[in-house]
């Protein structure tokens, strides 16, 4: 393995000295992502500015067998962009929208293009990029591809996977591959499907071809407020079962509403409500009001005090801003916030939310729920002070119990934030040893040396068996970033 000084010289040859950072004071900026409580200082950071530079950087790293962690905007919430004394490969300078093909409704972008910039580039054609994570003003398409990012409107329009047509990627060994095609169907295994959501472990996207969606001709946004969380959850299940497929169906509980309303993002949510549902239906103008009436009726049948339909685009934007900036608003309440992510079957929302409430009460922690109710994708967030060891320990315990409750309800440990390092210890709750081993095998197809984002997604112990097999494999090295933190990601 090359030393930091050797690597620095090699990489500076590719991108120039100014785009290789190695001083601790510079690297500290890249020592955390959106997952609180973790600090991992990279060995150095390198920032290619063109696709060619990116490929050359990866080839340089391959030549000296150096591990690396790709990073977009660093907004990820599972610690996927943490680089523990390995090279951090910053992609945020690859920001070109290479083409927008309105006729075929696709765009080709570099990985560092910010999600909302892509939609802006498509806007003059009446098109947009559908996946809309709450961090869309900052997060990048490369990061979205790595995490298979979702967002409120994924309820109707699908997640990143459903909107990526092709990826040109550089594999960890430096080979350039094209997965998928924008020019017709492809045959063979769906390696594009495998690549999307591989959390930077399979290689680095150099160019991404995405589908653009036509802007819906009509939109209605409703806000329903409830005096109990259970009633809002029941209404959610009933809307899902009714056959109306909202574009988005979001829930915020009382503590979230209060945080939002006390912030600069105040959206006019009723502060005394136990929960609000933000429901958007879209599509053709015809028949849309019938859907609005159905949703309205279901909400009222489940005890909604008021159901308000946004009168204009300004009101609609305001209602959405409160939802999208809710995490930011919670910054007023506590210095640190764990944004959790889990999924349950939609019919289990009511009892799982009640279980979460009991868990929070037992551990004396403050849970705020703001989440994609229509998908059953929970975000039970806990505000806390990471400098308070006692509170941190309680948060840690509560998060573990919440995860187990979601799994027990038939759910998943992550719906859109990824496993990263945060959820590693939960993987065994939902996957058998053989299933985890099968995932390791897939990773080894793309990265036999496991140099790309080492130590993430699948617990290292799950791969031991394969590493031990007497195959024609080079001797194993310690993967650089073995996670040391606890499962809830709250050790500090």
């Amino acid at each position, binding site marked *: 393995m090359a030393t930091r000084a050797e690597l620095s010289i090699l990489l500076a040859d590719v991108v120039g000295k100014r785009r290789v950072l190695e001083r601790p004071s510079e690297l500290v900026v890249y020592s955390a992502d959106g997952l609180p409580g973790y600090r991992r200082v990279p060995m150095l950071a390198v920032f290619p500015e063109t696709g060619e530079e990116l490929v050359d950087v990866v080839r340089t790293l391959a030549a000296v067998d150096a591990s690396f962690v790709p990073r977009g905007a660093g907004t990820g919430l599972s610690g996927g962009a943490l680089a523990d004394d390995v090279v951090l490969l910053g992609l945020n300078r690859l920001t070109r929208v290479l083409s927008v093909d309105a006729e075929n409704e696709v765009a080709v972008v570099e990985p560092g293009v910010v999600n909302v910039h892509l939609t802006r580039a498509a806007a003059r054609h009446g098109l947009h990029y559908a996946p809309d994570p709450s961090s869309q003003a900052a997060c990048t398409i490369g990061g979205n591809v790595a995490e298979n990012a979702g967002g409120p409107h994924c309820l109707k329009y699908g997640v990143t996977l459903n909107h990526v047509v092709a990826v040109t990627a550089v594999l960890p060994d430096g080979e350039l591959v094209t997965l998928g095609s924008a020019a017709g169907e492809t045959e063979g295994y769906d390696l594009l499907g495998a690549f999307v959501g591989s959390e930077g472990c399979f290689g680095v996207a150099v160019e991404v071809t995405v589908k653009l969606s036509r802007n819906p001709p009509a939109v209605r946004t409703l806000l329903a407020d409830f005096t109990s969380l259970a009633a809002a959850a029941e209404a959610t299940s009933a809307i899902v079962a009714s056959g109306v497929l909202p574009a988005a169906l979001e829930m915020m509980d009382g503590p979230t509403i209060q945080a939002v309303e006390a912030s600069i993002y105040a959206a006019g949510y009723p502060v005394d409500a136990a929960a609000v549902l933000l429901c958007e239906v879209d599509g053709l103008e015809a*028949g849309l009001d019938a859907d609005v009436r159905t949703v309205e009726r279901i909400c009222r049948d489940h005890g909604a005090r008021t159901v308000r339909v946004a009168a204009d685009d300004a009101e609609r934007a305001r209602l959405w801003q409160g939802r999208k900036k809710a995490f930011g608003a919670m910054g007023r309440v506590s210095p640190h916030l764990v944004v959790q992510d889990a999924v349950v079957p939609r019919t289990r929302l009511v009892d799982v939310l009640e279980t979460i409430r009991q868990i929070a009460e037992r551990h004396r922690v403050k849970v705020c729920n703001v989440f994609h109710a229509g998908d059953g994708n929970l975000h039970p967030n806990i505000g806390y002070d990471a400098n308070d060891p006692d509170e941190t320990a309680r948060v840690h315990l509560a998060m573990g119990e919440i995860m187990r409750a979601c799994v027990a309800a038939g759910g998943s440990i992550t719906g859109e934030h990824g496993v990263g390092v945060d959820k590693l210890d939960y993987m065994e709750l939902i996957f058998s040893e053989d299933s985890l081993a099968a995932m390791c095998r897939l990773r080894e197809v793309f990265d036999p040396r496991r140099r790309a984002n080492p130590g993430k997604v699948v617990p290292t112990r799950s791969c031991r068996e394969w590493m031990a097999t007497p195959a024609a494999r080079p001797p194993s090295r310690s993967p650089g970033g073995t996670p040391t933190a606890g499962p809830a990601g709250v050790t500090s």
Partner: protein
Amino acid sequence: MTSGVVRLPRFDATGGPSPHAAALRERVREAAAAGTRLRVVGRGRWLDAGRPVRADSTLAADASGVVEYTPGDLTLTALAGTPLEAIREVTRAERQWLPFDPFGAPDGTLGATVVTASAGPLAHAFGTPRDNVLGLEFVTGAGAVVRGGGRVVKNVAGFDLVRLLVGSWGTLGVVTEVTVRLRALPEADVTLALPLPADDAAARSLVARVVEAHRTTLAPVALELIGAPLVRRLGGMPADRHLLLARLAGNAELVASQRAALAAMSDVAELPPEVWRAIAVAEPAGAATVRLSHRPARRFDSWRHALATAARLPGAWVHASVGRGIARCVVPPGIEPAAIADAFAPGSFAVAGEPGTLLFERLPAQLWPTLSPSAMPDGPTGRLMRKVKDAYDPHHLLNPGIMGE
């Protein structure tokens, strides 16, 4: 319970394989020990698809039954051998459906549809199996029982083994169980036929206007061009010419408004919903089927090109998914293989300088080596695919040859 569908107890994802998977695992392990190559089948409805398989024995993953169905979740888990028809009946009782309508017999299985990634006209709105499978269980060629994904509609836990197995033609593992996303049955479901004008420019203009209206007044769940030879074969159709079929679904108001929008563009005639089934089952056993795809903007040129090709093969027909830019040619048995080889020769489908993609579903056995020796491309992407095969089926026991691997 209808159609012999049995509800089975559910098994925890981490709690070991289902008895069904465990039994298949034993079969695979025995085969591995003996070096027996296996032809993996469901109900055997797809045996004429794909490249010829060199196998010593047949392994039937034909066990049928719904494992879990909670209508309020709009998800369903079934054994791979469950016929789509059975799923249709179970879900219809709850006013839901699985919008998979692959071409072929209605008793084809969920597992076969998923592993062949077969899609029909409804993929226009609902996507292909790739977009609708939430989780699955499979037995690898190494004899391990593996689960990918889960039973919830949104899930990014771990690497995506689901996408890897969808469309893998049984070469990576024997799929034993599948979880899919369901939809609510629409309140109204109407199919309209628009005769294409005989004049080429007028026909192109009509298709373009219908596509453009997707921005404002149209949102069909299927939009399929049906070539005149197929129209004739179906019989009882409103005109003896190419038709554009639009399937409109949703609440009554939405459907009525779209009907009016189409009527403003063309003559329209309502067809019974059974027309879709008739199209799906029209192709006879032993037919060669070939898909031609281009960028969506080339959809009309592509369609015309496919029509011209079919015209050279007596009895052949074409239908095309307008939104997806895929034209499908069906060549009935009895045509000289040499004529088929000539019609679908590599490079013969370039449209406006773009090569397009030819994808063969079924061919006379002797044509595969020349027309499409492998599903895996040359170069680094194909090499990755071969490594995937080696990783999951190290002894090459499962459906050897079907992807030209």
